């Protein structure tokens, strides 16, 4: 069979969100891979400029459904730096706790998705069933299961009481007892191992060269973690934990890294819940932010999440730039896909835990005469509406 192009996306069962891959396929082998992003652009960065800081907090939370808390944390701590306020220690600890609980739910979700991508639905059902435990803890603490809305400027919005701490500890103990089983299955079920071992290999040198992020790069032996390398909130001197790395560089290594990170996260959660400092959870924050610019970052479950914020002295930011971890992982993903099998496409793609809506951007190409265009929120919105109308979609 000669080579032909296999389209994956914009709509495809392997994709949870729209994006477009073009694979040059020779029989069952992928010769070349190409990616086109931009099907899920929502104009959030532009939207931020038109809203107040407190509204942006909730808008940025919705950059991603799975790592909502991380975006909120990064934005909040960036704006706190601009305001020059320091949240109380209890607030910072709860901030870390939310981050780790979110990591737990996300990694459990990912384990299930990885199982589903290789047709192992029982694995998927079990991990998602156990994920309910951490979802219930999150719901109990924050009042919501997905967008927790816990972070705010100057601390966190809700406190924990004794009852909640006890329940959370019970839930984490149950998960802690359960997780080694998944690690065990991931490394010993022959059909599963056959599908993930030696697949989508990313050597350490390539991981560094292509700037991969998060568990993807840690599974290639790069021990980078913002929690350790640029400690924020309660990390650093307060909360002890280890960075998990693996030398494998394949999908199996990524499963192992994530499963072990789960164990680390349980330990962090237990430490925080047992050593929660007394005191306030937040300080009062001003509504207007002094002029300045800041880069804020945190370790999301998928890798390093960065926000750049520029303020102009009003209650609305001048510019917000979001770099979600998935964007950093795309070049590495294309590298991993090349030379693999068609059957490995879904699992290799899923192995970076992609979040497509986080990464979508729009580029306006300036015409040769140099007429630079500056778009405001309304024009951007109208452009979006016209774009779909032109293609016959009724809005």
């Amino acid at each position, binding site marked *: 069979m000669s080579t032909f192009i296999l389209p994956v996306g914009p709509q495809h069962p392997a994709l949870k969100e729209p994006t477009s891959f073009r694979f040059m396929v020779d029989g069952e082998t992928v010769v070349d891979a190409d990616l086109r992003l931009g099907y899920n652009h929502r104009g959030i960065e532009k939207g931020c400029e038109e*809203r107040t800081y407190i509204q942006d907090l909730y808008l940025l939370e919705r950059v991603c459904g799975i790592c909502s808390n991380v975006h909120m944390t990064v934005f909040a701590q960036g704006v706190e730096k601009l305001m020059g306020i320091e949240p109380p220690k209890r607030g910072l600890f709860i901030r870390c706790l939310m981050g780790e609980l979110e990591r737990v739910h996300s990694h459990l979700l990912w384990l299930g998705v990885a199982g589903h991508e290789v047709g192992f639905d029982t694995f998927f059902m079990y991990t998602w069933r156990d994920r309910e435990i951490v979802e219930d803890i999150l719901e109990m603490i924050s009042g919501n299961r997905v967008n927790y*809305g816990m972070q705010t400027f100057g601390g966190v919005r809700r406190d924990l009481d004794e009852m909640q701490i006890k329940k959370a500890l019970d839930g984490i103990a149950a998960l802690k007892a359960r997780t080694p089983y998944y690690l065990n299955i991931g490394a010993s079920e022959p059909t599963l191992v056959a599908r993930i071992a030696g697949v989508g290999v990313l050597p350490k040198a390539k991981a560094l060269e292509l700037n991969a992020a998060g568990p993807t790069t840690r599974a290639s032996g790069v021990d980078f973690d913002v929690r350790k390398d640029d400690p924020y909130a309660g990390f650093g001197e307060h909360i002890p934990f280890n960075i998990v790395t693996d030398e494998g560089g394949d999908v199996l290594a990524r499963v192992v890294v994530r499963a072990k990170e789960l164990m680390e996260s349980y330990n962090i959660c237990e430490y925080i819940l047992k050593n929660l400092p007394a005191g306030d959870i937040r300080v009062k924050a001003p509504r207007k932010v002094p002029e300045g610019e800041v880069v804020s970052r945190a370790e999301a479950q998928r890798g390093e999440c960065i926000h750049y914020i520029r303020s102009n002295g009003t209650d609305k930011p001048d510019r917000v730039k979001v770099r979600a971890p998935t964007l950093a992982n795309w070049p590495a993903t294309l590298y991993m896909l090349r030379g693999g099998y068609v059957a490995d496409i879904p699992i290799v793609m899923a192995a970076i835990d992609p979040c497509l809506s986080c990464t979508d951007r729009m580029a306006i190409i300036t015409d040769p005469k140099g007429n630079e265009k500056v778009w405001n929120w309304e024009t951007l919105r109208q452009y979006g509406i016209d774009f779909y109308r032109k293609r016959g979609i009724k809005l």
Partner: protein
Amino acid sequence: MSLRLGAMLPEVLKHLFKKPATVQYPFEKIGVPKGFRGRPVMDPNLCIGCQMCVKDCPSEALEIHKESEATDEAGKVSKKFSMTFYLDRCSHCAQCAEICPKKAIHMNSEFEDAAFDRGALKIVYK
């Protein structure tokens, strides 16, 4: 770790005799915990019309209108306000409840908010 064929088989067979983890949702419901962020409910008697909730709402789901204005014998002016709330825009962040200086807004534990008619999602508290 060594490979074992059917590594999950004992676990799977054990589940043959276990109660399912799922429930039959519309007939059987799991309650929500205390402090759940359902839809905002406003008490018009407490509202002073400061518009803080309207300013902070990220999804522009709230409107506060003055309903009536009365002056009693002592010359004290009392105003009544109503809140129009669009459930279809609400993102359940509870910022309105948090910012309200008089604690006139709280979140209830209603989570089945779907409706066939958009009009049914416009709620007026007065």
